[in-house]
């Protein structure tokens, strides 16, 4: 019996050595290759993956000695964020280039996970991009990423139905309600206005557009002001869309982008708030709404200005990358005018460079892109704060509770205010 115990003891003592031995073996393997191998992590790329891979092959041809491996993360943005924070907090060098949602940059920069790439973006170069995305990639006056493609909330409407009933696209939320009410009374089975109301990040994008278009804010001088009268009024209006005006069906409270896009794309809704990607799908051959869809800036409350939430993705370099120079080359390539143009023409990714919105090929093929230029110019980033991911975890359930009628808008926003104060209190 005693011998067995000794044997176990010896084994336990040797275990670390065994593990170390394996780890070293691995290291030698990677050190042996001479070519620079870049790993590029990103979410799902829309459309045919071959188009995107062809771009990466082009890059390899222009840069002999560099191989690019691209690895796709789960399509849920929250899961991508979680992947990055856990791996980067662990100083992982397993990937070199990462694509980031517009809301992550201040957090990642503050945590010291991103390579400062200000030298790639002199002032003159920064001026070639839309101001919103540029603001989002800048933290404390340093640039940490390059905007890759951009997005902003827009209003889709059915041109044909509005025309039939003698209406024009609404400029204010109240006009939208009146128009939708009048039309759906005459067109049974048609939804008035659909948007994204599930408890997730997209809900924040929707709600902020009402806050901003009523003059409200979430943070002012890095302090929460979320329970302002403007915001309470805006949130109450959203609840009223569901219950008082009844132009928004209850299914919206569980809907994300795609379900709403399907409903509108099947001709079952008059108005929809969504991202511009939907337009390319509506205009495809065989689409029931082809040629019948219009795009307009989102309405505002009377006397206030319309506002869209900025979306889109940015490319940055992992601070722990072993090949930062090669990684910089890759992000410069992917954000170059040529590649942005190709991505816009093939898979509908909207360029972050303003000049492309005057590009003759693009304007001819996607005429509505000129209208998007003005919307992107005014798109607003969500509160730029390293604590944004914690703040949104607070806002999502509170907004959801207000839409579901579990809390009044005032109660929900007061609760959010209290929790955000607590989160930001960590800096005291």
């Amino acid at each position: 019996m005693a011998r067995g115990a000794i044997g176990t003891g010896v084994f336990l003592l040797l275990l670390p050595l065994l593990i170390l031995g394996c780890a070293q073996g691995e290291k030698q393997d990677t050190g042996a290759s001479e070519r620079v191998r870049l790993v590029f992590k990103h979410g799902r790329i829309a459309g045919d993956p071959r188009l995107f891979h062809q771009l990466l092959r082009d890059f390899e041809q222009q840069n002999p000695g560099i191989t690019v491996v691209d690895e796709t993360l789960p399509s849920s943005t929250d899961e991508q964020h979680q992947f990055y924070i856990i791996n980067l907090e662990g100083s992982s060098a397993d990937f070199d280039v990462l694509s980031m949602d517009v809301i992550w940059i201040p957090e990642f920069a503050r945590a010291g996970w991103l390579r400062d790439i200000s030298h790639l973006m002199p002032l003159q170069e920064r001026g070639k991009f839309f101001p919103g995305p540029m603001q989002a990639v800048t933290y404390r006056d340093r640039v940490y990423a390059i905007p890759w493609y951009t997005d902003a909330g827009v209003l889709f409407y059915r041109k044909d139905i509005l025309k039939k009933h003698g209406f024009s696209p609404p400029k204010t939320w109240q006009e939208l309600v009146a128009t939708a009410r009048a039309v759906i009374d005459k067109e049974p089975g048609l939804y008035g206005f659909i948007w994204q109301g599930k408890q997730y990040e997209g809900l924040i994008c929707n709600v902020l557009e009402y806050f901003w278009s009523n003059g409200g804010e979430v943070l002012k001088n890095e302090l929460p002001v979320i329970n302002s009268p403007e915001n309470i009024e805006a949130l109450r209006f959203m609840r009223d869309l569901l219950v008082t005006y009844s132009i928004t069906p209850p299914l919206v409270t569980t809907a994300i982008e795609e379900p709403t896009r399907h409903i509108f794309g099947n001709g079952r809704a008059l108005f929809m708030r969504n991202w511009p990607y939907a337009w390319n799908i509506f205009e495809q051959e065989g689409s029931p709404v082809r040629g019948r869809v219009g795009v307009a800036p989102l309405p505002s409350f009377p006397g206030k200005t319309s506002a869209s939430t900025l979306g889109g993705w940015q490319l940055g370099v992992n601070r722990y990358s072993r090949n930062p120079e090669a990684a910089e080359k890759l992000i410069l390539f992917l954000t170059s005018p040529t590649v942005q143009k190709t991505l816009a023409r093939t898979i509908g990714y909207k360029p972050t460079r303003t000049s492309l919105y005057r590009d003759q090929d693009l304007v001819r093929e996607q005429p509505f892109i000129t209208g998007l230029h003005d919307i992107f110019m005014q798109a607003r980033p969500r509160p730029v704060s390293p604590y944004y991911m914690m703040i949104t975890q607070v806002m999502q359930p509170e907004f959801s509770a207000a839409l579901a009628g579990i809390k009044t808008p005032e109660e929900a926003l007061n609760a959010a205010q209290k929790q955000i104060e607590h989160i930001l209190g960590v800096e005291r």
Partner: protein
Amino acid sequence: MTNRDSGQRFVTPALLLLALVTVYPVLSVLYLSLHRKLLIFDISRFVGLENYLFLVRDDRFWNALGNTAYFTLFSVVLELVLGLSIAMLLHREFRFKGFVRAVVLIPWAIPTVVSAKMWEWMYNTDFGILNYLLGAEVNWLGSPLWALNAAVFMDVWKTTPFVAILLMAGLQVIPRELSQAARIDGAGSWDVFRKVTLPLLKPVILVVLIFRTLDAFRVFDSVYVLTGGGPANTTETLSIYAYKVLFQTLQFGYGSTLSVVVFLCVGMISVVYIKLLSKGTK
């Protein structure tokens, strides 16, 4: 060297291992819960009981506790009643008994995440089979009225077989002579069940209850996949809340505070049950 001594020495490695994998993490979570700690920004401050004081005022915590209690109570009671009925049925002799028994076990055999995804589709408002069969248009997972009940229902579907199998094993141990004797004495089926079967089954029922209550109280995977805690946090359980704080935002201080509270609750439930169990076997 006496047998006693060598016995102690033999359990020492096991005890050390236990200390390493349970006692150390528990103490470290307790320690973390007294800090305001944000790993990613290298912020770590000792704040004493501040996290616990915030927890007492945290509506989201009380909401999660309420959801967890509701989920635990209803799922465990329903599973016990249904499981007992199924166990009684399967305990009889009939044709294809082995086949039926295997079929009953299927829900329990499917991995939780898979069955949660399955139910997510069945609950779907537009395309779900449930609304199709009922001819209804209920937003099962989106309405605050239904979502938590939908999660309970799924858990009952999944876990009743487990309860039934355990109780069936218990039933098989009860000698048939006892119920036969009772019948000869003039007892009806209901009397036999109430006065003979149930008392003899009590220890097994308590074991089932301990398992199920603790599992239900810590429920995470099924609800997380089904609803992610929504709508409006009406299905957010304590484990989901703790997970979001700990791993989605890496707030290790407050996340640990929540974990300590879950730990205390689970501990209290266990103590109550173990007391009941020792009373029952005496």
